[in-house]
């Protein structure tokens, strides 16, 4: 796997962005929380993720067949009975996919939660406490960063007697926190110097309250992005492990489907229906999670957000492309916008003929 390249890390140098107020929306009482949802990427990502979560919950109930049950139709293409065809044993691929969703989502989320909690505890403590503690914790996370995660996961799962989902999730969680911890530490370091943290201290707040109530809420975007990143990594890892047959998971997940498909040479036998859906399911889930991460990035860095709107529509319906360095000129008529004309004389008490209105702004 390549390293997660969420741009959150890159936002750190910019720093300010996170604490910056929303420009241009003072009057609205619309809370920042809902603002996040108004991002199209976030909305799309969350909707897709929601569907997956729903399937994870109800999948096993709505699956038309027992995913492991053998059936009479072997290696059949998609049909009305078997929407995604059948395997060499006559199992229903669609049911396997549905039932497998739970395991994927479960592992992704458990690993994400474990890694996030670890990274928050380690990263924020290191960043806030500083000194020797920081050095020790940083060294720890660096060691974990250096050890290759996937091989380590493979080894550890093979040590386990019966590496079920929970074990896989925990192992992934325990081995993949270090990157986020580093990011969080850097963020905490920069936040710790912020005035409002100092101000909270100066008001007399205790350290744990400062960390939990002043620092953490401002780290939510980073934490969320780290969480999403770990979920992606965990999902891919679980699937990879299942695909190469390392995990002993007895339950279905998409990796198991791919494992069987590959073991039975599904593609060579033209049984694309066996191989393709699981891969697409992964890709769509991954895309949804990435979209959420983009949205978080944009949310964190207003510069990125406004970067989305590169084309604007004039009142007359013309679109103008924004370019840095060359501000668009809509018209160069020297006519005033407001059609204001001077009024000869006004006596201070008198009434004036009103001739002007603000042009629509």
């Amino acid at each position, binding site marked *: 796997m390549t390293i997660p390249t969420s741009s959150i890390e890159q936002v750190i140098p910019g720093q300010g962005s996170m604490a910056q107020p929303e420009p241009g929306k003072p009057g609205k009482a619309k809370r920042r929380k809902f603002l996040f949802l108004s991002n199209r990427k976030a909305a799309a990502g969350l909707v897709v993720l929601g569907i997956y979560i729903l399937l994870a919950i109800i999948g096993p109930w709505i699956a038309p067949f027992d995913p492991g049950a*053998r059936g009479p139709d072997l290696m059949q293409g998609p049909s009305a009975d078997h929407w995604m065809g059948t395997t*060499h044993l006559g199992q229903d691929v669609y049911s396997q996919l549905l039932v497998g969703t739970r395991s994927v989502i479960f592992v992704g989320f458990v690993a994400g939660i474990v890694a996030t909690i670890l990274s928050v505890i380690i990263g924020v403590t290191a960043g806030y406490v500083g000194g020797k503690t920081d050095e020790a914790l940083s060294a720890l996370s660096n060691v974990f960063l250096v050890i290759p995660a996937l091989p380590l996961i493979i080894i550890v799962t093979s040590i386990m007697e019966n590496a079920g989902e929970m074990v896989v999730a925990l192992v992934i969680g325990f081995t993949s926190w270090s990157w986020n911890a580093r990011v969080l530490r850097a963020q905490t370091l920069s936040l710790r110097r912020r005035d409002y943290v100092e101000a909270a201290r100066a008001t007399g707040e205790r350290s744990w309250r400062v960390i939990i109530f002043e620092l953490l809420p401002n780290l939510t975007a980073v934490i969320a992005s780290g969480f999403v990143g770990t979920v992606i990594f965990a999902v891919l890892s679980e699937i990879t492990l299942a695909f190469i047959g390392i995990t002993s998971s*007895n339950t279905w997940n998409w990796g198991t489907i791919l494992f069987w498909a590959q*073991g039975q*040479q599904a593609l*060579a036998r033209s049984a694309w229906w066996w191989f393709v859906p699981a891969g697409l399911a992964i890709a769509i889930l991954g895309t949804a999670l990435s979209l959420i991460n983009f949205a978080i990035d944009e949310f964190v860095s207003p510069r990125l957000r406004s970067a989305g709107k590169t084309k604007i529509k004039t009142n007359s319906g013309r679109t103008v492309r924004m370019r840095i360095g060359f501000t668009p000129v809509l018209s160069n008529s020297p006519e005033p916008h407001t059609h204001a004309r001077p009024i000869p004389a006004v006596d201070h008490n008198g009434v004036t003929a009103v001739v002007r209105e603000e042009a629509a702004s």
Partner: protein
Amino acid sequence: ACSDSPNAANKDNAANGKAAGFLSIGMPNSTQTENNNPFIGSSSASNLGYRWMIYEPLGQWNNTKPDQPLKPWLASSITWSADWKTVDLVIRDGATWSDGKPLTAEDVVFTYDLIKKNEALNIFAIPFDAITSEGNKVKITFTSSQFTTQHKVIGQIPIVPKHIWSTIADPATDTIKTPVGSGPYVLKTWAQTGIILESRESGYWQELPKVKELRYTSYSGNDTQLTALASGQSEWSFVFIPDYQQTFIAKDPANHKIWAPGVLGIHGLYINTTRKPFDDPKLRQAMNMVINRADIFTQAEAGYFHPEIKSVTGLPEGAGDAYIADEYKGKTFSVDVEGAKTLLTGAGYTLDGNVLKDKSGAPVTIKLSDPAPWSDYQTTLEIIKDNLSKIGIAAEVEKPNQNVWDTNVQKGDFGATMRWTNGGSTPFDIYQTVMDGDLKKPIGTAAQQGNFGRFDSPEATAALKAYSNATDEASRKTALATLQKIFVEQAPMLPIGSDNVGAAYSTKKWVGWPSDADSYAPGQPTQAGALMVVLALKPAA
């Protein structure tokens, strides 16, 4: 600069239209490092099988016809004593090493001495006693009967030149960069991407092969090997091909061929006989009766790979036919759910709806386990699970990883598992792996050699001893009949399929491959007998 490149020659060959002169052989054995030591099982020479193209044994054994005597090879005659503790060999005249030196009886004595002295090289654990020579005659004595291991002693020990090997400091760890053997081929180039052997110009004791060049490639796994086979990149391999009709044959129906003769080594479901209620032979028998071997053969083994075992004795068709006791001749497995139910109820079990309850009234459940990556075993287990449910046994399939599985099986910590037996030139190895009381270890202690199910039968143990030490055919036959009877009646392991030493090959460029009609040699390119195949190949018309 290109002319002195090591690749120039190879490429030129191809360019000059001599392309047809080579044979591409592939094995799905993943990456290799250069190691041409013929004694080391993990060397590239062994993994890919080319050691048998360079080094030769004294006699050639045809796995597919195990009851036939070995074909004299470097030894022109092989004579065993009646107690199978002494073998007299006459070394062939005219064989030379690829460096030109003649092959003599001294080389043979040296080779066997080498194995005797190096425990690390004695992979068959052969109990050598004395090894002597006289002229072109060699006499080897053993401390025990070698009846069941004769094919190993004679057919699977490559003879190496004394004048070279006597200078090697540690024959167990030397990688033999320039192998010198008596075989028709010499190593031309060794590269990660492929290993090329070329035919000797002269000095071989038989007619030189038609195939001028052998190109060995090690593919990362079954799927890549299959892709290479299907595309014709590989012309000869031994690999599991799911749905071979479609994925392999159909790519070139005229030339792509599969041949999978069974041998005396089987795969079956080992049952942990210490666990209740599976310590009851009746229950095991009933289980044996419901397993649908045909389904397993077609669905898990792609209809060819582990040939279906039909005889109730567990002996494979063809290779095993000669050994089946009269009592069981013609007795074959058939799925008989009703019969199994009757058997069970007769033995005190009750079928409550679709749950089988044992005598104490507890439902009968079993855990089937095998490592996840072995998809044929996994499929088999899925089918067995389904079959067992017919008689109310609830089975659960577990997929521990390979290390865990291995340890558990050896320690007896499993319910039932698909596993193989050792293979050999007689049914001895099969029955020994399953029933030998000498190999049995208490639960919790690793039984490395066999009897994983802790099958306890002094009778079988005695019969095994009697068989291997017998000095006459009749007592062997009796012992074997006893073994078969115990195996059938006690069902310590439910045989499913046999090993095969076949091949997937292409007749596009080369013909003369072994087949059912003419199974003159094993088809698997890593077997010692593969040389017989190569020597038999002729260019396609």
